[in-house]
Structure formats: C-alpha cells, structure tokens
C-alpha cells in the first residue's frame, strides 16, 4: 500500500485516505472546519467566484457566442478551471417570487463519496480538519470520484485529472479564511469551526423563522455525515430550489461495489485459484491416454 506523502510526514493531520488504511488519528488533531453560506444574505454578486478564480490562478472559460448564453450565470456550471460558481434559478412560490442564488462548489463531506470511490491509494485525502483534497500525483484518472460524489462536483482536465474546491487549504493552513469568505461583501459567508458555524446558523435560522420563513432550515446532509459547507436555506423544505439534492448520500451502488462485491470478488477469485491448485495436487493434470498407458 502506498503511503501518503502529502506535505511530508509532519504535515496536516489526515482523517481519511482513499484506498488506504485509516491514518492514526491519535497523533494529530484539528477542529472540523466549515463555511456557512447564509442564502438569506447572499446577493449573488459573484465576488466569491471571481476571488476563487483569482486566488487559485484559474482562467475560467469565456462563454461568448451563440449557444453560450447562461443568463445571470457565468456559464453552465463547474469546470476544471472553475471551482465554484453562482447558480441562479427563478421560482414562483405561494409567498411570491424567489430568485434562488446559490454558491455551488465541493461540499467537503464528512463522509466523502469521492474518497470512498477512489481506487488509487492517496489520490483523495481528507485532512483532520475535514477538508477533502485531491493529490494529482497519485490520481490514475479513472473518474470514479465523479460516481462517488453525490453533488456532481469533480471536473476533469484534458489529462484526466480532477479539480475542485480545496477549501483554500493553503490559506486555511496559514491561518487565513478561504478566499470566497474573504471577498464576500455582505457577510453571507462565515468561516470557522463546524461547531461555531452551526451555532451561528441556528441563530440566523431563528431570525429567518421570525421573518416568516417557517420552513427555513440548515442544510447539512446527514447522508454524507454532514458537510464542510453548510447552507442556511430560507425555503429549507425544498433544497432542490437551490440546486441542492434533497437527500444527499453516497449512492448505494457505490457502497455496493466498494463493499459486498469486493468481498465476493476476492472470495471467488482466490477460491478459483485455490480450486485449480487443489485439482492439480489431488488429481493431477488431465493427461491423454491414461487408460492406454495403464493397459500397456
């Protein structure tokens, strides 16, 4: 089994490593980090989108020309050169029109489907602080992470390497807030420990409920063990309105091929090999003319 070498031996603490044994978590510890996206205060200005691209030195595609018009959106969605984007959707509701504007990027699941699906040791890592990141040097380009992801996030470049939000791990490691949080002009983005963010979210939630958003809720899907990005949704009963899956969880198909099928596979294949070997030592090869030779 390959060993994870990201950031050396004394780097960030690791919680999970793809296709590898769980790292010893008694060595290092870190608080789980989170970003709270307060949809009720988000004006959809895309400062986070621009800031993200700038910090990560990305050059997002310029969507111009016929067939390349996406309304208020910068483009159709995530891309290897675009780690996050703002989604705009209009909905008529009984309480009037809702312009659902949502920041969309990797959610940094506590139980990351990408990491679970990844067959290459160390290509996907989850740090002790909850950040999920890719290590291209170990990636084999199989795209299984895409199947593992319940949020349709990883995007592949021409070399079949996946890209996504890395929670600005470089900034976070240096004690700075992620770039999107830094740029947000209306404080719709909050950054801190997951615990703090949940407390803050709950406080804001009470405010929203007081304002008449009775169905408001905090989006922190338990199906993936909670997420590093949590959302405060004014219309919490309908996360689809914001382009978020209602029941986000790792597909049972993925669990199937990473679990039972793998076990059955080993039994079958090792069993077959063993069977062949037993045949050989118990009965020997099936040779020609045995009968004749015996008679002779």
């Amino acid at each position: 089994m390959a060993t994870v070498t990201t950031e050396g031996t004394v780097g960030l603490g690791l919680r999970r490593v793809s296709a590898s044994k769980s790292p010893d978590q008694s060595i290092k510890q870190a608080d789980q980090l989170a970003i709270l996206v307060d949809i009720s205060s988000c004006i959809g200005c895309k400062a986070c989108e621009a800031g993200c691209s700038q910090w990560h030195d990305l050059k997002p595609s310029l969507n111009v020309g016929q067939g390349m018009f996406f309304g208020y959106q910068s483009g159709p969605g995530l891309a290897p050169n675009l780690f996050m984007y703002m989604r705009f959707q209009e909905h008529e509701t009984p309480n009037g029109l809702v312009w659902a504007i949502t920041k969309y990027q990797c959610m940094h699941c506590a139980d990351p489907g990408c990491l679970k699906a990844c067959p290459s040791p160390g290509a996907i890592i989850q740090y002790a602080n909850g950040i999920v990141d890719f290590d291209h040097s170990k990636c084999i380009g199989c795209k299984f992470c895409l199947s593992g992801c319940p949020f349709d996030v990883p995007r592949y470049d021409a070399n079949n390497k996946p890209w996504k939000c890395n929670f600005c791990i470089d900034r976070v490691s240096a004690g700075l807030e992620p770039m999107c949080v830094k740029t947000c002009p209306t404080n719709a983005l909050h950054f801190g420990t997951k615990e703090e963010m949940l407390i803050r979210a709950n406080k804001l939630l009470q405010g929203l409920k007081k304002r008449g958003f009775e169905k408001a809720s905090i989006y922190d899907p338990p199906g993936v063990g909670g997420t590093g990005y949590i959302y405060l949704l004014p219309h919490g009963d309908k996360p689809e309105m914001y382009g978020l899956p209602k029941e986000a969880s790792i597909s049972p198909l993925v669990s199937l091929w990473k679990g039972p099928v793998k076990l059955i596979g080993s039994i079958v294949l090792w069993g077959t090999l063993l069977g062949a070997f037993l045949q050989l030592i118990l009965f020997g090869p099936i040779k020609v003319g045995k009968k004749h030779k015996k008679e002779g």
Partner: protein
Amino acid sequence: MTNGWNDIKNADLILVMGGNPAENHPCGFKWAIKARQERGAKIICVDPRFNRTAAVSDIFLQIRPGSDIAFMGGLINYVLQNKKYNEEYIKHFTNAAYIVKDTYNFDPQTGLFSGYDPEKKKYDQSLWGYELDEKGMAKKDMTLEHPRCVFQLMKQFYSRYTPEVVEKITGIPKDKFLEVAKLVAETGAPDKAMTHLYALGWTHHSFGTQLIGSMAILQLLLGNIGVPGGAINALRGHANVQGMTDLAGEGRFLPGYLRPPRADQQTLKNHIEANTPKAVDTSMNFWANYGKFYVSLLKAWYGNAATPENEFAYHYLPKIEKLISMDEILDRMYRGKMEGFVSVGMNILASNPNVKKIAEGLGKLKWMVVVEVFETEMASFWKYVDDPSKVKTEVFLLPSTLFAEKEGSFTNSGRVIKWKYKAVDPPGEAKDELWIAGQLWMRLKSLYKKEGGKFPDPILNLTWNFQNPYHPTAEEVLREMNGYALADLTDDKGNVIVKKGERIPGFGVLKDDGTTACGMWLYSGIFPQSGNRAKSTDTSDPSGLGVYPGYGFSWPANRRILYNRASADPSGKPWSEKKKYLWWNEAEGKWVGYDVPDIKPDLTPDYGPFIMLPEGRGRLFCAPLVDGPFPEHYEPVESPVENILHPKTPYNPVIKIYKSDLDLLGNPKEFPYVATTYRVVEHFHYWTKHIYGTSVLVPNMFIEIPEELAKELGVKEGDKVRVVTARGSAEGYALPTKRIKPLTINGKKVYTVGIPIHWGNEGVVKGALANMITPFVWDPNSQTPEFKGFLCKVEKVKA
C-alpha cells in the same frame, strides 16, 4: 448621503427605491443586512425589476419606470391623512408652518404651478416665496392651520394621490401599497427611523431632483432626517464620484459648491451678495460665510496676485452667460460649435444618451484628448459614426493610471475621505493624472510666458507651489485644499490660534480679508498641521452606533451625520433613548453627543437644525427648484400611457427638448414597451469588460424580457433580440424572466424591458452600447439624462 454607510445598521426600516444597492453597492449593502439581522429591520425594495436587492428583501413591489413620484405622493398623502408625521419635528424643524405668498398656486387640471411661461418653458419662481414680515422674517402659523401655510398647501396638493390613483399610475396593487405605506408611516414614531437608499434609479429621470425632493418631504414628515438610522442616502456610483462632485465636477459649481461668477456679477461684491442668503428665521444660515470661502479660494489660487485692491483677482475668473451642462456641451458639439475636448477618466460617448448624436458630435471636433487606462469607445468613437471617412477629429489617447497605480484619496458616498496608497506601478508609459496635469500646465505656462496672449495673468499668476511642479503629489494638493494661514490668525480675545504659514484646523477660521487661503473649504480640516487625517485608521466606535470618528475624515468638519441637531427634540433632548445621538447640555450651554455637532456648538436649541438654509428648517416646500415647489407626478417624456392627473401636461413642463435631426422621440403606438437601463454587479460601467476576470462573470449583453412578452414574441432564452427605439437599436441575448411582470396601468397592460449597459465596441467582451437607444432628455435641475423609462419595441433577430 446625509448619514453614512455604517449608520444604515441603525435603521428600523430600509426603503430601497431608485437604487439597487445589492447590485451596485454590495459592500455597503452589508449594513442593511446587519440592520435586519441585529435589529430586525425590514428591507423594502421598490423597483421595475425583481433585482438582486429584491432577492434579499422582505417586501418587493414592482413599479412602472418613471412613476415613482406618484408612489411617493401616495406615501406622503398616507402619512398626512393618517397623521403619522412627527408633529413636533415638522413644526420646529421644517417650513410646515411658513405662510406662502398668495401668488403661489397650483392648478390640478393643467398640472402647472403659477407663473408658467409656455414660450420660454420656464416658471417665475419669485411667485412661490414665503410671506415675510417687516424684519424680513418668514411669517409662520405654528398651529399649522393657516390655509396658505406650507402644511395645508401640501396636504391639499397630495390629497390627489390616493392609493387608487397610485395603483393606476404605478401598477402597484392598492393592498400592496397600503402594506408598505403602513410600515413606512410607523417610522414617524420618535424611537423609529427609516433610511432611504437611492442612486441613479431616481436621478435618471426628467424629474429626478423632484423625486429626491419627494423623499425629503416624506422623511422630514416622519422626522427621519438627522437621526441615526434615518436619512436620505444617495449611493454614489463610483469610488470617488462624491469627491469629484465636491471638487466642481459640474460646470455649475466651483470647488466646495461655490458658484462660478455670472455675467451679471462683474464685481466680487456683486457675486458674494448674490450668493449670500439672508436668514428668514432663527437660522445659523451657514452660507452667510460664502464670502470667506470665496476669498480664501481666490487666495489659494492666485496668492499674492489676489489683493483686497483687485477684489482678490476676481477679474481673472470667466463670467458665464449661461450654465453649460453636459447636455448643452453635447448639443453644441453636435452643432459644430466646439473645437476641442479633453476627457479625463470619462467615457462621454458610452455614458450619455443617444450615442449616435454624441459620436457625430465628436466627429465635428478638431481634436480630442482622452486620458484613460484603456482604449475606450470614446477614444475610438468613429466606429459609431455613419461615415468614419469624414471624421477629421485628431484623437490623443494618453495612457493613464488605475486607482491602484497612484496614491490619493477617495471620498465615499458617506462623505468619508480615506487615503489610499499606491499598490503597483502603472504599465508601460502610463502616467498618473497629476503628472499629466503638471506637464500640461508647465508647458502652457511657458507658452504664455513666451508669447503673451490675450490675457496671460490668470495663467502666470496661478499658485503652483509644488516641490516638483511637473509632478505634484496628491498630498500637496490636499494640503492646498485644506488651506493655510497667510497671517497670524487670532480669536476674539486676540490670542493667536494659527500661526502664519501653518495649515488651518478647519473652515471655521477662514476669513474674507485675504489672510487665509483655502482651495476647498468643505474639506478643510482634513490636513491640519498635525497631519493627513484621511490616513487615520482608528476603528474604535465609542457609541456603538457606527460613528467611527477616528476613521478617515468625513466632510464637513469630520461630521458623520448631517443635520444631527435634529436627532434631539426642539428643546434639545433626544427624541428617544434608542436614537440618542446629540443633545443640548444645559449646564455647559452647548451641544454634546457622539458626533461633531452640525450646528455652532453653543447655539441655543431654538435655532433650526438645517443650518445650510436661511430658514434653518427643512423645506417641505422648495421654491428654488425650477420645476415646482412640490414634486408633482409627470410622466417620462416617452411614456406608454397618458398622464391621468393632467393629460394636457404629460411631462415635466420646464424640460428642455432638443430638436436636432437626431433628437427623436417615439410614441407608444410604434414603441409599446417601457425600457429601462441599469447595471449588473459583476461589471463596473464600461471598464471591467476590458478585464478577463470580470468579463467571464457576465460575458454577454442581454435583454431582460417578461416571460409573457417573450411568449408573445416567440423568443426563448439565448435567442438574439433587438431593442429598437426612435434613436436606434441594441442587440443582445434574450433573457425571459419571471422577475419582470406585465403591469396593469390604468387598465392597460404594460411591459417593461430591461437593458444592462456594460458593453461596447472595445474590450475583452463586446456588445451593443445600451445608450444607442436612450433619449437625449435631461432633468432641468440637475441636467441628468432620462435613462430610466423610455419607449421601445423588441424584435427577434433571425439567425
């Protein structure tokens, strides 16, 4: 802004109308969010489109572009009829009790005030004055019952604006209007405040000034001016447009809102007399100091050449026959009456109405200098001219610097002046504007020195005391603006307070005898002897009200809330403990509080809080406006419906209509839809399209169309459509939306079409200039074009 950005957090109600702060002032809008999260304030958005502000508002009302005065009239009427006004406030702090001359009249049938001259399209404003007593003081009726007192006139005037009329004109259903009216009226309580946020959505009308006047009336009635969380807050569109305005950005001003001499003011004495008002009530009448500011300005400009004997070189200043505003400049240019043009950091082609007319006009110049950071549409204007081969204009494009490439100050909407430092060197041969100005000036001066010329004195005698005259620094200029003593300045007792040669501590010490020089009285105090206060970054906020007295410098005199004396009742006690801000300390005999008092600190409470006016009181009735003392609903010049209040006077009767072959106006038969232009948050004017990183955010010019209209036209999202007006057309991708609904205006279905402005011929992304289609129509008070509300039709472009 009469209050500051941070103060928005103190509001109980935030009415956004005529602006889209979430879109255009996202950083400042955080204070509105804060008010809601921390104090439970409500945000109400009234706009022709469900925009990004609406997306986070508590209540959204869709209004027809150009019908805002009707809505405001409705609110004023509601407050008056339901007695929701702050009676003490309006009696003592406004001109409600003033008696108006009987020559004032308004005819609701014709929609005209008295004194209208249809030939000249002008009012005789002298008919609208107050009745004065023998001492020259305004007559008042403190019971507010005199039939000709402002209060009664106003009540009668706005009684026509019933909720039903509001619905018929604006398209806002009566019940929705009343829901909002109730919330707005509640802020008339002494412990509540509403703030109003507006921007170009209100100024871009042929009645823009009146529109803002209508809000002034409402806020005065509710007692919301001068108090924390109140105010009328004009959100300025550029980082430093407030600074530009303060420094004579318009032809009708000299720095600090002083006036340029007129032809009938040939002597300084004449000029100062004409501009020094006489108090008509217990008023501090601040403009009584006009002469001090004017003389100090002349001293700053002309130094030793300005002497008491030559009226401080007043004769150097040109005396203008007529106000030359932007509309006039552009029209003269089109008529071939201009020779050259210097444009610094401005794109007059893209940002003014009727691009065709402007382009043709620019083509008639001999030369044009464009000082810019990009090659703008203005610099390559010939691309918009019918026959570019006929253009003889020689264009000089001088590469200049962006804000991060030079140091200097920004004056924000809240009047806070903050220093910014240079971050990077400009690329290539680009030079900052001070270098360009220095080089240009020194060359001009040496030419005048060598060749003489008709009148070289103003040029040769101009003060130019910079270490490197070819490249003055921003701080040197700011020092000159702050002002300095030319002799020892003494107080009443003869003590020297400022030594000769030292910079003055504020405009309070300015004199009209030539012993002080001050380049810009309003900013005086920003650079006292102790140093540049724009550089101060103390973030302490002792009152917790967001005053931050040590952060930057807020003109005037580092005052954060203007008219803050009004935060206390007539006796000087705070209106409420919650809104405590400034109060009269009886024992000390002076005003104290959290901010610099906006009144002479020892002036007793009977003096009115509105110190800039000779009344000392806020004007509910504002005679100096050229189009009427009360804001009346007039339709935009191009309107889809008749003016139901007075069909004979559909639009602003004093507005100047230009009549050249390109000044075309459309009618609703041919152009049935209402169009409005606006910005999107991702772009800054015509700049950010030159930058890749911002271009990708919203790369394509688009046209927002109500879904119902899109269906009628057979247009889907992403189809190309063309918006056509009498002036021209603009193409973009169709964006059918639920966010603009068809409105029912007086029984007629009216569609609104939205056109964002940010594209042009130059840049990373290209598109139509929205101003190809806008009308060359201007507000008669402010000379601002009517971009919001004109007529268009929409065509599908066949692929």
